């Protein structure tokens, strides 16, 4: 088998190639546009080719065996004391599949950006940041060390910060970037703590290390049996801390607030980072550390950490879907949809389906990138308009965008049979249904499915059907402001992504669960009979009915009335209170403003006041007291002791006058004296030394 692995020597190149591109671009001037495009695309293509080769290698090495191929290369970063701190790279089916997805979608989005960003003055810097992001994300995927993963994790956060705030002149963009960084860092503190805790308990941060790694039997057994405060197993406590990081990055409630705001960044960034790849990092982390999450002392219990993951995921899936129903910004709807879909992935992980989660992640990456780029095309075509109430009827102006967007929408909503989203969601629902701990997450997920179909139909109706509404608002230059179709450099990537969103479904149907076996080992066989087993068929019918109900309800509500900025939303007419609460995103941001942020500012002012008044005050009191004492003693001296000395002092003063001629007041002269004195002293001591 070893001969398959020559390619693994090139594993490190996958992240390093885009990193080099980023480095070269960041020191080159803004005028070198062509070079920026060539460097970025070249690096992306090279990474993609390498990733594909690695993927094929893993498939061939696995060859339908039960065993999961896992290849780790570890090295020492530095040594402290007697300990070597080791990092490593890893190749296994999980990250091989992810590598292909990230490089492929990254490449398409870079191509799209060449068109989308063509008029931006900071074109070069944009591609530098995009390359930095790719490098960090790919590094995160290939790391075999929790520490290296954390390092790349933070760099992904940095790239996200830079790209959200790319249009830094907009205060809202700068604020959104800061919010993203800080919110995810709150989660990252948990991650950090979990990491140093694991390090303390196991003495290693490598995932796989020939039996001595963190995720291997010996370490897991120790963690699952050891307990900490509150009777919590060590594995549970540390897994939950790592999950805090995942919640921040993957926008899970209550740390989801940054993700919708992140839509301030350029649309390709939203597509790449805040839909397809970066937000998936949290899901990937849980998938990577899944043995830790699942570790239990006894054989028949459900791990506590996984229960938490499931509940957080289920709640987020429904919660975000509700909010998406009442948004009017085309990108924000998609953003909340992303939060909701990430919740579905977390459910999958929580109920034990790593393959299901990763498959949904990859499928979602395709159709969400497609939807975002489609939205970008719409925004581009409508002259930077993002309010869906001012759109309408775009299917006539932008046929290519409409067709591809419709495919993305149907994949996301879970239209049956021909779309990857249907199969991936189906598998998650199937697993959730069989979860022994509680049936409720399954029902929450079903509700989420219904709402997804509902809000996506609503958006489609607003954007592509009916009449174009911006004309009514500003009719004076109607001909110029007509929406237009985007150039091929933008529509071609859309088409490719649409094809992916459809075809990908073929590799993970119950009839041929190839992907499942690729991730978890074992051979896939083609059996159409599996489609018609009672459990599978019943659930499929149920979810088809739910999707149909969602689409039907939205169509019924929105397609038959007039829409627009002037009009109230049809749902608002029916349930104004509920709609307003949802439109205000259920007041989570307001809640944080009123509690966490206010507390923060108050604590800052309190610490400042403590310094200025208490500590500084004490110092001043002490010094004031000393001054008072010295004044008193001066007074005593003058009154009682000085009189007699005065005459004596007079003599001193005259002689002092002579000496004072040396005091020229010229600092150079003084320093010359000092220098001379120093030399004399040195000579003196040297002389003493001799003696």
């Amino acid at each position, binding site marked *: 088998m070893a001969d398959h692995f020559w390619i693994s020597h090139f594993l490190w190149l996958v992240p390093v190639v885009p990193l080099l591109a980023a480095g070269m671009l960041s020191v080159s001037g803004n005028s070198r546009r062509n070079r920026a495009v060539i460097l970025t695309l070249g690096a992306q293509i090279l990474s993609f080719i390498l990733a594909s080769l690695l993927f094929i290698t893993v498939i061939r090495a696995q060859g339908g065996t039960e065993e999961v191929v896992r290849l780790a290369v570890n090295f020492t970063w530095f040594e*402290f004391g007697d300990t070597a701190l080791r990092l490593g790279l890893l190749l296994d089916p999980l990250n091989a599949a992810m590598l292909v997805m990230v490089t492929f979608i990254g490449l398409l989005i870079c191509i799209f950006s060449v068109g989308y960003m063509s008029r931006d003055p900071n074109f070069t810097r944009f591609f530098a940041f995009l390359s930095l992001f790719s490098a960090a994300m790919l590094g995160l995927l290939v790391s075999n060390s929790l520490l290296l993963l954390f390092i790349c994790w*933070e760099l992904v956060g940095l790239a996200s910060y830079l790209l959200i*705030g790319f249009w*830094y002149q907009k205060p809202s963009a700068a604020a959104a970037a800061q919010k993203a960084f*800080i919110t995810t860092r709150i989660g990252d503190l948990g991650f*950090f*703590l979990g990491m140093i805790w694991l390090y303390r308990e196991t003495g290693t941060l490598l995932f796989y290390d020939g039996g001595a790694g963190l995720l291997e039997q010996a370490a897991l057994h120790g963690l699952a049996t050891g307990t900490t405060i509150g009777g919590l197993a060590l594995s549970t406590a540390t897994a939950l801390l790592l999950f805090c990081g995942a919640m921040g990055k993957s926008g899970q409630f209550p740390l989801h607030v940054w993700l919708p705001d992140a839509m301030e960044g350029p649309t390709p960034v939203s597509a790449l980072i805040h839909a397809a790849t970066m937000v998936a990092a949290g899901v990937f982390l849980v998938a990577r550390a899944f043995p830790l999450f699942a570790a239990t002392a006894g054989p028949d219990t459900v791990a506590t950490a996984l229960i938490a993951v499931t509940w957080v995921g289920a709640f987020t899936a429904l919660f975000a879907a509700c909010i998406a129903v009442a948004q009017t910004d085309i990108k924000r709807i998609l953003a909340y949809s992303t939060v909701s879909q990430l919740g579905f992935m977390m459910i999958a992980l929580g109920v034990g389906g790593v393959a299901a989660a990763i498959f949904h992640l990859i499928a979602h990456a395709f159709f969400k990138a497609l939807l975002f780029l489609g939205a970008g095309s719409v925004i581009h075509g409508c002259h930077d308009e993002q309010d869906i109430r001012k759109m309408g009827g775009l299917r006539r102006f932008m046929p290519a965008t409409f067709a591809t967007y419709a495919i993305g929408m149907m994949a996301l909503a879970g239209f049956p049979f021909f779309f990857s989203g249907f199969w991936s969601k189906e598998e998650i629902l199937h697993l959730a249904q069989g979860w022994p701990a509680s049936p409720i997450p399954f029902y929450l997920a079903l509700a989420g499915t219904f709402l997804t179909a509902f809000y996506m139909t609503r958006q489609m109706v607003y954007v592509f059907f009916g009449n174009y509404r911006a004309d009514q608002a500003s009719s004076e230059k109607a001909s110029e402001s007509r929406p237009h179709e985007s150039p091929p450099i933008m529509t071609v990537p859309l088409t490719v992504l649409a094809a992916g969103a459809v075809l990908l479904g073929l590799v993970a149907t119950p009839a041929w669960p190839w992907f499942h076996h690729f991730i978890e080992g074992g051979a896939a066989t083609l059996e159409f009979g599996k489609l018609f087993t009672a459990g599978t068929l019943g659930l499929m019918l149920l979810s088809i009915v739910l999707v149909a109900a969602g689409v039907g309800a939205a169509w019924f509500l929105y397609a038959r009335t007039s829409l627009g900025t002037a009009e109230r939303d049809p749902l608002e007419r029916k349930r104004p209170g509920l709609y307003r609460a949802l439109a205000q995103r259920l007041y989570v941001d307001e809640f944080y403003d009123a509690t966490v942020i206010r507390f923060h500012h108050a604590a800052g002012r*309190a610490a400042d006041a403590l310094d200025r008044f208490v*500590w500084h005050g004490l110092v001043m009191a002490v010094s004031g007291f000393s001054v008072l004492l010295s004044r008193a003693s001066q007074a005593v001296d003058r009154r009682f002791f000085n009189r007699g000395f005065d005459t004596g002092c007079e003599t001193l003063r005259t002689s002092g006058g002579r000496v004072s001629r040396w005091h020229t007041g010229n600092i150079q002269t003084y320093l010359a004296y000092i*220098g001379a004195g120093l030399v004399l002293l040195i000579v003196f001591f040297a002389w003493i030394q001799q003696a």
Partner: protein
Amino acid sequence: MTHFPLLSLLIVIPLAGAVVTALTPSTRAGLGRQVALGFSFVSLALALVLWIRFDSATGTMQLVERFSWIPALNADYHLGLDGLSLLLVLLTGIITPFALAAPAPAARNRNIYFALVLALQGMVFGAFLSLNFIQWFLFWELSLIPAFLLIRLWGGPVRSAAAYQFFVYTLAGSIAMLVGFLAIFLATGLFDFIALAELGRNGELTAALGDRFSFNMAPETLGLLVAGGIFLGLAVKVPVFPFHTWLPEAYTQAPTGVSMILTGLLSKMGVYGFLRILLPIFPEQVQAMQTPLLLLAVATIVFSALAALAQTDLKRILAYSSINHLGYCLLGIFAVATVIDPGAGNNSGREAALSGVFLQVFNHGLTAAALFCFVGLIEARSGGLRGLDDFGGLRKVAPVLCGLMGISLFSSLGLPGLNGFVGEFLIFKGTFALTGWAAVLALPGLLITAVFLLRILNRVFSGPLNANWTGLPDLSFRERMTVAPAVALMFFIGIYPAPLLELFNQTVIVTIQLLP
């Protein structure tokens, strides 16, 4: 003494440079700075020579120079170099030319300014190399004089108050320390750090204090009192909460180059004192008081971060940020004092914490100095304005300045890939293994630091360009050359810290072995 006295030479060069610079005619503009820079580069070269000559495979003192100096006090002229000293010598060698090249006050007598900076460098070198209390204390105290004059003569509008407060506060701390050492001398007849560490380790120091003084106190109480006096002197210097109120004033009022030296080097003298004196000589006392000391470290971290949040002056923010970062050093140092069960035989936690402290000392010196330099560069362009809200959108007109300062800010908040992260990771790793609760309590500091540092990026660099600064020039070539080495080092240490760790690794191991 058989070898060439390299260490003495290292102290003498900057002092000689100070004299030469002061005597340089001020008629030709810029000549004084060039002379001073020349001398500081010679010092840097010599520091690098020391690094090459240094044998990192042993943890003992090297290149030792020792001869009798004041026999009556049993005080030798005693210089030596171990990994800790070398690290700080290198830092001093790097920071001084950096500070000299930074924007200098445009007043008369600039040559004296440069000369005093060099004199300060000489004192700092002396303090990092001396192994005898009297000698060390002389350098420690003498360093105050140029620092005082630099603040007093070339500082901002309220320089006088700031300078006096700085001087008197530090001096008061030093007196407490001096009294402590006098007690030790009276009890043991020793001033030598290494010999005293030996006594401290065996518990003989406490016994000797008990024999010499009675005061109706137990020897342990006496030991604590003496250690407390020394702690006070060091605590003011670092500073440790709540002895830090002089610092924001002094850092804010000092001219840019001096702020850089204050934060980059003088604060390190305090940390150095903790590592060279308090921890080795008073391990029992530090262990006895470990919980309150750790609480002080946590308070230093959290309160200074919070206070930074409430500031609107860039220099004040950085000053509080500086206290915050030194708090991590203290956290690591006090955690190292944890009593380890000898049966466990695993020193990995202590080694991590101490290595982290060493790294943090270097990294903070570099990053904080760079940040003060950047603020100085902004001030030089804005005519002295440096409020958080005086700017906005500077990225548009000065992308290089903002980019490089942005990197330094991220280095300061501990972004992986830059230097700050490695030290903080090791400190937290070690502290968590030794005293988990203190690490957890200090953790919010990392978050608040990110908040106030990002706020600088947000308010100063982002947003619409402030109409006052449409003509603000970007960094000139000379200015880029000033900051580029520091930024390059941030990347280098962040990606490949092994050379730096290797330099002091044996010192870390030996220091820990000598702890009870």
